[in-house]
């Protein structure tokens, strides 16, 4: 039997030789000085960068990188040599892949393969990883024994929320079985060849740099981060080649167990390399190997239910019915009642069910969830209500957008065929509300209205309630409350970051408002949201409090000394890495440019989102840069210490549209300026969005208020 270590060493050498060949070809074709840059990342060639701090910017650097790799492959029979060789294999693989991106910036365009992941994609997964919505990652390599088993496996992982990466022939199997693939549904066809695995390792290493602030070259730091924080694992199908074994060596070095059905020349290593001959048991074997426990909520519906389906889109042609409150009446409402008023698990549908209407009909949808419990507060109503989007979206074949009375829900034909009806819609809400808020919700009943008259009548009533809530929210300012909250939900990934959540400043991920934090604290008093008093102000304009500093010191475990709530220049709040937006100082205008994660273009700072984002994150404090939620932009506390939102000089057009109404209102109230959002430049009003001169011209043209303000520096 060939020794395991020899297999890794042979595989590592083979991958390195292939990398060398790729580099030879590229050099011959493009010469040594051609730039090398993977798209949309501030961490170019992240695998080589991570482990050996190798910085690659042109073709000749690839050769230096190869030398580093060569040094890592030593023919010794020790685990240290194997871990080095395994990681060297991933580094070689990355060099092979990056060569493709020298040929063309979009080598995978028009193919079924995804290839390289952008930084934005890494960041997007921050929140679901933290909340456990994505309990782990699996990398499936090569061909399952049958197409059916491949499909079973992929769907099985998907239904458990596990993010699935596919490499090699299993992609063809998935395709044959009609499996919906893509980043939004969390099944990604990475590439055909084993070296595309480097994109996944790059993904992991960037998570460590972005969320964990691990520095390039910190070998132990990366190993520790991936081992402890990234619940990834590999399933490799037989026959497993030496190169795959070598990649497996790298995976195991990172702490990711490999499960295989190959018995030929295969060695068992407890909790690291597991032989499971029965592919049908791969999922359970793998989850146990990586200590992943899936939180199961039993929901009595005929559909798969998982976070993996949250990003699923139901197109018109696949649609059974459409609920659209822009055309007909509808709403979503949670009301807290007395215990005697609620009958637990009562689900009622008022009006026609979906099997009573034509395919493609537009229907009314009113959802009333009534809850009761001893610890319940009326303030929790909107907190629960806002979760409906996630609760409903997780069902396979159902798409949900919006909230309150602006909602759109589509149910696809597949779901309908499987027997999904409106009572199941109620079942989902019942089960999720009861399980997620079991501490406070003792009873829950759901009424679904599809009757047009009822919807019209109740929508009006609901609007009165929304208005009242808004009034209360409008009065809810940082000054009007006596406590803030910490949020350290992210610490599973970003161990030294602490968010301070206030009524006017939601968590930077956009997912935790002050009310959410309050509810979280009351539901779980020792949990991630802890009370921060505000009894000892140091400077209220900056938003500096002794209490806040104390909390930050305690919960960052000493990594951070002090933060201000309202300044970006003086001790700004840190970021975990999963922020929705980042703003950075634009020195020429003394203003700030804001860019959201979805925007991939250039900003007037001469940097893209990814590059700006890499300035902060991982709990690092970088004056002049700050990650934040979209809704913080319209807050009166945004950039307050620097003069407020009048300092905003640039935003992507799409982001402007999201914040326009509220931002205009804020500017009106603060400065008496109408339509302020129009004064903010975006990529459509500039020929070269990266040119600050052009920005200045635009601002002067529209009379932007920043030009009247004191210079910042």
């Amino acid at each position, binding site marked *: 039997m060939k020794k395991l270590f020899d297999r890794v060493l042979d595989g590592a050498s083979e991958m390195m030789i292939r990398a060398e060949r790729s580099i030879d070809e590229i050099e011959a074709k493009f010469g040594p000085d051609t730039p090398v840059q993977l798209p949309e990342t501030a961490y170019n060639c992240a695998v080589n960068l991570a482990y050996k701090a190798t910085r690659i910017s042109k073709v000749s650097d690839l050769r230096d990188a190869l030398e580093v790799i060569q040094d890592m492959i030593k023919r010794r029979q020790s*685990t*240290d040599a194997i871990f080095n060789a395994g990681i060297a294999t991933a580094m070689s693989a990355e060099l092979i892949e990056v060569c493709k991106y020298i040929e063309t910036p979009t080598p995978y365009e028009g193919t079924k393969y995804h290839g390289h992941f952008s930084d934005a994609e890494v960041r997007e997964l921050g929140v679901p990883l933290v909340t456990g919505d994505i309990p782990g990652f699996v990398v499936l390599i090569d061909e399952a024994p049958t197409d059916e088993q491949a499909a079973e496996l992929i769907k099985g992982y998907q239904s458990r929320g596990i993010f699935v990466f596919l490499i090699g022939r299993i992609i063809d199997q998935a395709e044959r079985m009609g499996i919906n693939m893509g980043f939004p549904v969390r099944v990604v066809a990475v590439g055909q060849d084993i070296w595309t695995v480097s994109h996944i390792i790059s993904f992991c290493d960037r998570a460590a740099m972005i969320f964990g602030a691990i520095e390039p070259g910190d070998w132990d730091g990366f190993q520790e981060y991936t081992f402890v924080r990234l619940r990834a694992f590999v399933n490799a199908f037989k026959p497993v080649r030496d190169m795959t074994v070598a990649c497996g060596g790298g995976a195991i070095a990172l702490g990711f167990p490999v499960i295989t059905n190959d018995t030929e020349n295969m060695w068992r290593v407890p909790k690291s390399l597991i032989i499971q001959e029965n592919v049908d048991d791969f999922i359970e074997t793998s989850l146990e190997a990586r200590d992943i426990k899936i939180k199961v909520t039993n929901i009595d519906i005929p559909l798969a239910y998982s976070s993996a389906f949250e990003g699923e889109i139901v197109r018109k042609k696949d649609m059974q019915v459409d609920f659209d409150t822009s055309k007909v009446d509808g709403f979503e409402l949670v009301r807290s009642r007395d215990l005697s008023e609620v009958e637990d698990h009562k689900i009622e549908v008022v009006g026609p069910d979906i099997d009573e209407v034509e395919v493609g009909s537009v229907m009314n949808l009113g959802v009333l969830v009534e809850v009761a419990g001893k610890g319940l507060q009326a303030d929790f109503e909107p907190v629960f209500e806002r979760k409906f989007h996630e609760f409903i979206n997780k069902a396979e074949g159902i798409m949900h957008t919006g909230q309150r009375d602006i909602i759109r829900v589509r149910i696809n034909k597949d779901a309908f065929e499987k027997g999904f009806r409106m009572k199941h819609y109620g079942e989902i809400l019942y089960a999720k509300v009861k399980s997620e808020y079991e501490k406070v919700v003792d009873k829950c009943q759901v009424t679904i209205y599809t009757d047009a008259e009822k919807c019209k009548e109740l929508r009006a009533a609901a609007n009165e309630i929304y208005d009242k809530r808004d009034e209360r929210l409008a009065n809810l300012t940082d000054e009007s409350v006596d406590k803030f909250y910490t949020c350290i939900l992210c610490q599973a990934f970003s161990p030294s970051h602490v968010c301070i959540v206030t009524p006017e400043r939601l968590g930077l991920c956009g997912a935790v408002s002050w009310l959410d934090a309050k509810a979280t604290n009351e539901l779980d008093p020792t949990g991630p949201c802890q009370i921060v008093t505000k009894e000892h102000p140091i400077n209220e304009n900056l938003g500096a409090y002794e209490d806040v500093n104390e909390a930050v010191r305690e919960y960052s475990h000493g990594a951070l000394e002090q933060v201000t709530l309202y300044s970006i220049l003086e001790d700004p709040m840190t970021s975990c890495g999963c922020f929705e937006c980042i703003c950075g100082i634009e020195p020429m205008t003394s203003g700030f440019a804001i860019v959201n994660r979805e925007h991939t273009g250039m900003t007037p700072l001469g940097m893209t989102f990814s590059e700006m984002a890499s300035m902060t994150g991982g709990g690092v404090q970088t004056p002049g840069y700050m990650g934040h939620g979209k809704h913080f932009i319209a807050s009166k506390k945004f950039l307050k210490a620097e003069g407020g939102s009048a300092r905003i000089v640039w935003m992507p057009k799409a982001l402007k549209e999201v914040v326009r109404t509220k931002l205009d209102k804020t500017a009106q109230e603060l400065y008496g300026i109408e339509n302020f959002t129009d004064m903010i430049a975006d990529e459509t009003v500039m020929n070269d969005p990266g040119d600050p001169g052009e920005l200045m011209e635009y601002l002067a043209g529209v009379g932007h208020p920043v030009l009247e303000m004191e210079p910042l520096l």
Partner: protein
Amino acid sequence: MSWEGVIPSEEVIAATEELLKTAEKVGADTWQQRVRNQTPHCGFGESGTCCRICSMGPCRISKKAPRGICGCDVHGIVARNYLRFTAGGAATHSDHGRSIAHTLYKASPESDYKVKDEEKLLRIAKEWEIETEGRDIYDVAHDVALAGLNEYGKPFGTQRFLKRAPLLRQQIWESQDISPRAIDREVSQSMHMTHMGCSSDPEALVRQALRAGLSDGWGGSMMGTEFSDILFGTPRPVDTEANIGVMEEDMVNIIVHGHDPSLSEMIVFYANDPEMIALAKEQGAKGINIAGVCCTSNEVAMRHGIPMAGNFLAQENVVLTGACEAIVVDVQCIFPALGPLSKCFHTKFITTSHIAKIPDSEFIEFDEANAGENAKKILRLAIMNFKNRDPELVNIPKQKSKATVGYSVEAIKKCLDGVTNSHVDELGTMKPLVDAVKSGVIRGAVAMVGCNNPKIRPDSFHVDLMKRLLENDILVVVSGCSAQAAAKVGLMDKEAAKYCGEGLKRVCRLVDIPPVLHMGSCVDISRMMVLASDIAKDWGIEISEIPLVGCAPEWMSEKAVSIGNYVVATGIDTFLGVDPYTKGSEQVRGFLQSGIKDWVGANFIVNNDIDMLTTMMIEHIEEKREALGI
């Protein structure tokens, strides 16, 4: 990162130097001084060539006088001395086992000694075909103890525990005619064979040494271990601290020292008695601090997390701190020097066994009937002695390390269960360890045992060796004073895994174990025999094929030679850092260091150069791997 979290030897030396200054101040004699007085040692004694078995001599063999008066040549003399040395050790361990068997025999729900691990009792009863169905547990205990006691003198048959070994090993013992019969018989026969006018054939004498050793390891010692577990609980992982810094300046410090847990268990139990604690407080102390020295320490550390103050050559140090209210001893490895030494301080030196009666001590006899009462008496003596401390003399070096101890075979299996996968693996086996070794992640294992010996700077061989093994992904299991050597500097802290090779580091992390596993006291080397047997069975190979070696780098006692014999006879090559008085005979050396390999598949390797010894061990393990094709 090279062992920076582990206490360096310079600090250990400096702390001892400080204590020796106190000794000088009070005019106390120390072993360091006595070693100087005794050096150089007698060359004839050292090479094993002096015979004083009859009164015609003593005869000393030299070139000029190649034979003794009776005509015995140097090989016969060296071999006889070697066998007597072995017999001394086998008798000692086995008598310890016998004493525990007696305690088990007398165990009852009303007495201070009860059955704590019923499961183990029932398992052994089943193994020995003793009826358990529907019987009172104490009746079963009584029968098991009696059957055990009969193992010492039964007229026919071989040791019951031999059946625990893999079949192949049992066959080797049979074919080599070394399956041990009644324990006392093997010791007696060894004495008989070495009597004037009996055996002078070195081969026969060495063979009997192996058999006498086996009667210890697979007889008396194993009984000592197993019955102690029944009475006091089978060890499982527990956190504790080690090194002299575990003594507390503001508490009543009571040191338990020796080997037999029957005494120390009672002291530990009654030290928690509110009445005793109240008395200590009345006397101005914050409480009672029990700490151990030598193997008694291992016993109570493994079962109760009692801190370990030190090993064999630290026994005088605990008194030299000036903060030791009492040093309470049972049997074995107790320096008579503690008598006069304790007189230089306020320390009460309390002996408790007729087997170890020592001048200048207070003798408080300890047996099953008076255990509780006398334990309290001892505690009271110590507590009332707190006020007699001379504060001027108090100096407790600040050294101490964290340690996780208590890895019995049962505990190791339980830990290994933690890395199995319920969809492909079975529970309660050694297979995860076997797989880790087969794949190469762990290269092999070393069972490190044995004492301190003033010929070597205390612990230096143990610790240096372990560090190198760990760096090379070799797992280390330890017992006796070797265990404390590791614990004292921090090698039993789970954190120490970070200094190991990547393979061992990963294994320690996944299994959640320290890189050096504490398996117990010196009788508990029998646990290692069971461990090796279970590995061989789960692997499907013979014990001598496992990449596993034994090592006693600083050994000194007769018990250690007995151990060496049974470890080798079990098929495990054993590396010694001190020669067992055999240098005088090429033939005896030839048997022990090579010839017996043909008998039992293993032999001794002796080298007092620690670097060479380590290199040889690592090479040896790699050779075994090569032979297995792994």
